[in-house]
């Protein structure tokens, strides 16, 4: 692949998480029974007319601002005309040459390198219904059912400049885009539910800037699919070029099972959608003050947060990454640190046990979590006990103080008692003691574990460590008595 320049552009559709559809008052709820969320407007019945949902515009503006776009105070809706059974009016209301927003920019990390990609435009449009074919596709299926619940859900279409140079970069871009839109609160961006969809176009240039035909790839339903499909396609195009062939301009689809791209259709000229201004909707004229109001409610975005965590708290790239990718963890982290706790200590617990348990379900308030951390850091309970307590906090919503008191959780730091336990452990494992004495230092961990187990995790680990090392040092001469 050396010597070839890859250029990738993405076209992304995001379902905006408004309560109702873009041109009517129908509810939008994923998974509702088919055709239960429809009305004359979203079914395109004769005599029905669209009315623009202000919330959809607001969400699209939020998305555009989060992506550093310039908002056009004047934009227009147009009709894109084509026939398809799931398109109720046989045209889609969308935006063409006067879109809502242009000239955006998204920054993101590819490994350690900060990248940026231009966003050409963001516009607002309506979703079509959903076709469910009895066979593979509409051609050749015995029948096709259509669910119009989806018809009229507001969509933001986001188009990037074709400037990404690798499949990994495209993936990193899309992951960051999703995160930014989630931060902005405009969409849940679930690729598996189709609320975030992505088409890619890719060109492979034998020499930089050399004109070649564009291939579009559809059916990319996950980040992995995006990356793999682009990697496959780049290799395919290089193979074609190296054989002396020409890459045809075409639309290909990603076949998840076969893990390859397959030709859908050759582009014999662009389809003619006969765009014209939607006469049922006046142009969209926005008030600059409203846009500023929306801007003022935008939260801190991921990249800003990442920088702040590293600067203000000195967190590692790893911890920062985990926290920024999971806004609810970041929230717990900040609330817990805010009360003057050690950021690194808090971050370890949040990105470790807390994150793990949160993934399994449930939440624990920052207040309770802070109390738990305080008990651990003061040595009132051990870290091992802390883990158990946190599990109970997630499982049963208990308060850490009450739980610890109730269970009689305290740390055992009694040297005599621990010495006795240690002796029992060592006596029980004479061969291992011998091996340790012969230089296998790493067995120390095993003995620590046995002591902790024998004390139900209540032993103070640092003390156990110390006493064990002492006992074993003695024992380098110390031999278990033969019975």
């Amino acid at each position, binding site marked *: 692949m050396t010597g070839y320049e890859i250029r990738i552009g993405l076209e992304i559709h995001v379902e905006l998480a408004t309560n109702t559809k873009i041109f009517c008052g129908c509810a939008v709820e994923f998974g509702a029974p088919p055709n239960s969320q429809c009305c*004359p407007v979203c*079914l*395109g*019945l*004769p*005599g*029905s*007319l*669209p*009315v*623009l949902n202000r919330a959809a515009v607001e969400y699209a503006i939020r998305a555009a601002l989060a992506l550093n776009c310039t908002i056009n105070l004047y934009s227009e809706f147009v*009709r894109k*005309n084509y*026939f*398809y*059974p799931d398109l*109720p*009016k*046989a*045209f889609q209301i969308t935006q063409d040459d006067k879109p809502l927003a242009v000239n955006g920019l998204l920054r993101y990390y590819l490994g350690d390198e900060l990248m940026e990609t231009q966003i050409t435009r963001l516009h607002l449009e309506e979703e079509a219904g959903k076709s469910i074919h009895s066979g593979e596709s*509409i*051609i050749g299926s015995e029948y*096709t059912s*259509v669910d119009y619940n989806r018809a009229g859900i507001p969509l933001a279409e986001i188009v990037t400049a074709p400037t990404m140079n690798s499949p990994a970069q495209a993936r990193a871009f899309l992951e960051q885009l999703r995160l930014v839109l989630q931060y902005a609160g405009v969409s849940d961006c679930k690729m598996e539910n189709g609320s975030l969809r992505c088409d890619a176009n890719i060109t492979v240039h034998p020499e930089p800037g050399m004109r070649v035909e564009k291939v579009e790839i559809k059916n990319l339903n996950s980040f992995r699919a995006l990356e793999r499909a682009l990697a496959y396609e780049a290799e395919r195009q290089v193979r074609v070029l190296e054989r002396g062939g020409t890459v045809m301009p075409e639309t290909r689809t990603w076949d998840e099972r076969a893990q390859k791209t397959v030709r859908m259709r050759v582009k014999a000229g662009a389809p*003619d959608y*006969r*765009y*014209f201004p939607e*006469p*049922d*909707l*006046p142009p969209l004229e926005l008030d600059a003050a409203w846009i500023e109001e929306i801007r003022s409610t935008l939260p801190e975005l991921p990249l800003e947060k990442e920088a702040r965590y590293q600067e203000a708290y000195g967190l590692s790239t790893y911890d920062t990454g985990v926290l920024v990718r999971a806004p609810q963890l970041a929230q717990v982290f900040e609330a817990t640190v805010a009360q003057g706790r050690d950021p690194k200590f808090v971050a370890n617990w949040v990105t470790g046990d807390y994150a793990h348990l949160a993934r399994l379900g449930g939440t624990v308030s920052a207040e309770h979590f802070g109390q738990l951390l305080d008990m651990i850091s003061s040595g009132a309970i051990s870290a091992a006990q802390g883990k158990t307590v946190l599990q109970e906090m997630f499982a049963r919503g208990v308060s850490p103080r009450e739980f610890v008191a109730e269970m009689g959780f305290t740390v055992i730091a009694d040297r005599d008692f621990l010495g006795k336990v240690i002796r029992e452990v060592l006596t029980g494992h004479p061969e291992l003691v011998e091996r340790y004495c012969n230089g296998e230092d790493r067995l120390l961990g095993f003995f620590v574990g046995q002591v902790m187990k024998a004390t139900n995790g209540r032993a103070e680990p640092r003390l156990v460590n110390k006493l064990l090392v002492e006992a074993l040092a003695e024992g380098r001469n110390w031999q278990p008595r033969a019975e």
Partner: protein
Amino acid sequence: MKGLAQKLRTGQVTSVQLVQHYLDKIQADDPKVQAFLYVDWEGALAAARASDERRKLGKPLSPWDGIPIAVKDNICTVGMPTTCASRLLEDYYSPFDAAVIERIKRAGLPVLGKTNLDEFAMGSSTEYSAYHITHNPYDLSRVPGGSSGGSAAAVAAGLCPWALGSDTGGSIRQPAAFCGVVGLKPTYGRVSRWGLVALASSLDQIGPMGRTVEDVEILFSLIAGYDGRDSTSLPDAAYHCSASGPDTLAGLRLGVPEEFFGNGLCPEVAASVRRAITLMESLGAQVQPISLPHSAYAIDTYLTLVTAEASSNLARYDGVRYGKRVEADDAWDMFRKTRTKGFGPEVKRRIMLGTYVLTASHHEAYYEQARRVRSLITQDLEDAFAAVDVVVTPTTPTTAFRIGEKQDPLQMYLSDSYTATANLAGIPALTLPCGFDSRGLPIGIQLLADHFREDLLFRTGRLLERILGEVGE
């Protein structure tokens, strides 16, 4: 209508008697005129009984409670078919009432039935109805005009006291003129289009038709008003009937655009309209010649825009969700067969023309060009209304033509030459009868005013109507 309202109020007549009278008349005469596509025999009487009940309780919904109405069949009505005179919607029942139907029901008006039109309102003679041709009550061998020919003929034949039509390029005014009745194309945005089956969304407007200017004004006051379901509805759309003003037109500046009196205008029509202008002058109006230089392009501009928008508006009739479906092997074949069988020739012609003018390679030369000329035409009228209050023209170049006479679609399109201008500019336009030609066919005169100046049209129209009645037609 005020007389009828008076009789209902005093109990001289009941709504049931009134509705029965019109139903009898329909039964007797509609087989000849064929104005109706559907008559709601039982529903109309039930609504009349409910109206009489309200009267008895002293709680009429409006002074017009109980006076029935006929509705053009491209306006959605619950409980009656809404076919648009198309085979494609032969069995289509709308699940919702149009905004205007809600409004007339709130005023207590029983709906007699649905009137005939050219299929999807595309035509000027009602000959393009997929069901039957409507006949002009003045001469049954002639057309009533179109596309609201059913409503115009029904009013003229006395089958209903008033009716609703829709006007995209003249579809209320041209048939009103042909049938000797009064009709208004309101300011765009004053009457909600919610529930009007779209022909060309940027031009369509529902309007009232009746026997007198006063009746049309009353009906207009019932249907005008803001509606949040129509994004082109105007906030101050409501209209309140003007009190009867002075008996003169003193101070009224009346503009006569010479472009509307040129080639193609039948001399008898010209003479009749000029006579009406003289009468208005005698009432004190200051008549002055004006120029609307781009009006020669109005019909081409209109046809380009109406076909473009129609091709898109009618694309939804694909057989998937409602209406007739012709089964086929795959979806596209089904679309093709359904539309081939469901649409009549004029509809297909306009869809093809509209598709053509919107295709990428012709978009600029036709569609964009038409949009530019539309703004020039609008500018002409703005200039005119800086100088005059009302513009007066003939409504149509000729009187009603014979059924089957216009085989050439272009000839048919020309009957909208004088009316399309008002739709392009979005201004209100009133037509009223101003005389008869030598065959005894009615002639219409058209009054145009600036946006929202329906009041001027009604005041001028009432006085002209009265003086025409006094001097004899």
